[in-house]
């Protein structure tokens, strides 16, 4: 142990806070170093002097002055920092924090919906595009570019009393009908992605099952040709 590291332990030694190992090292150093021994004694003596400093008394009217300032109210005005601290108490902040948290949750939710492509209108448009891609790939496809363009913006029509009537339409025949049905009284149509419900109901790329009503509350399932020009449909 050198003098510098010994010096760092002086206070702990005087206050008996050293562990056994440190104490042994320091004591062995002090035995061999007269300078550190003297320094340690001086440190202890100066600590005693500090501890023996005479008190600085307050004036006799100290307490009365404080009480007078309190009674007058003048001294009770909060400082700027105290005033600001009073403004930001938990009770005051809580409503704003809750409102902010709610708004954040809505924002995050909408971002998440967009990120996951769960926007219903976007999904419908996407499905429409897929159908027309299929039609274009088919050798007997008859859809013209104008028709494709027309089907990408399906226009809602009034709820059809029977599905075939909608299927006969040249433009937006299938998906347009589905989108319309989302607003009918069929309970399943409350699902925000109507296209997804029908995806597993494809029979081939030429036919799929279409749900509808018979004009009343009775549901119907109709196998439908996916090509409008075929004009083929079966109802049972």
């Amino acid at each position, binding site marked *: 142990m050198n003098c510098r590291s010994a010096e760092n332990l002086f206070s702990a030694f005087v206050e008996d806070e050293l562990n056994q190992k440190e104490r042994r090292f320091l004591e062995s150093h002090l035995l061999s170093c007269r300078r550190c021994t003297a320094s340690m004694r001086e440190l202890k*003596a*100066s*600590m005693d002097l500090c501890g023996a*400093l005479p*008190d600085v*008394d307050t004036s006799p009217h100290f307490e009365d002055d*404080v009480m007078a300032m*309190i009674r007058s109210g003048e001294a*009770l005005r909060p400082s700027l920092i105290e005033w600001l601290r009073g403004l930001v108490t938990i009770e005051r902040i809580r409503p704003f924090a809750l409102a902010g948290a709610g708004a954040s949750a809505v924002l995050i939710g909408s971002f998440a919906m967009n990120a996951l492509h769960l926007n219903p209108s976007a999904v419908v448009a996407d499905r429409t595009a897929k159908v027309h891609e299929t039609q274009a790939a088919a050798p007997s496809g008859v859809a013209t570019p104008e028709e494709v363009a027309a089907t990408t913006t399906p226009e809602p029509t009034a709820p059809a009393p029977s599905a075939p009537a909608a299927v006969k339409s040249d433009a937006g025949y299938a998906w347009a009908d589905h989108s319309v049905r989302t607003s009918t009284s069929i309970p399943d149509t409350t699902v925000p992605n109507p296209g997804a419900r029908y995806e597993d109901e494809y029979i081939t790329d030429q036919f799929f099952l279409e749900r509808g009503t018979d004009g009343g509350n009775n549901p119907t399932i109709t196998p439908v040709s996916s090509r409008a020009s075929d004009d083929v449909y079966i109802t049972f």
Partner: protein
Amino acid sequence: MSTENDDVPIEPLRLKKLDFAELTDEDVMERCAMGSEAAFRTLVQRYRTRIMNLVCRFINDRDRAEEISQEVFLRVFRNRERYRKSGKFSTWIFTIAVNLTKNEIRSRVRHRGTFSLDAMEEESSGQGVTFPDAKPLPDEDLNAHEIGQKVAEALRKIPARYREAVVLRDVEGLSYEEVGQILRIPGGTVRSRINRARLMLKERLKPYLTLEDV
């Protein structure tokens, strides 16, 4: 219409006067928070000298130290409802005092032109400005009062961050843990600052030390 009860003398309601001397600082402060003026007076009486000592050791101005000490108690009163009994009252009030004193030192440094050399040393933390030690006087010429002045002077001349730690520990007698809480520094830093401060003080006080009984 008289009843049996009329014959029984009514004992005067005896309210035992609460003796705050028996209560801890925390209990007294709790009563102060409930609006007891007597409790507040008790706290002022208990702490005024300690707070005055602390502030006086930090700044070299007795009158200003008294004003700051009064402000400490006014802040205690203003914030009495914020005090949490889970913490020690002494730690709380010393924290207020240290913060106010630091503000005072900063303010003095900012207005250095109208203040004394002490403020310059506050700012430089004792590193940039050197103050030669006063010519040491022989021990026998110094009485206790003069030695006290030398110690106070030595305290004022060590850097502020060391001084505040050693004053709280060696002058006020607080524990290392309390010093750490008041200064918001970890325990290891408290210990190293106090050790460093003591070494500085030892160097400054060397001419006045009597080592016979050490």
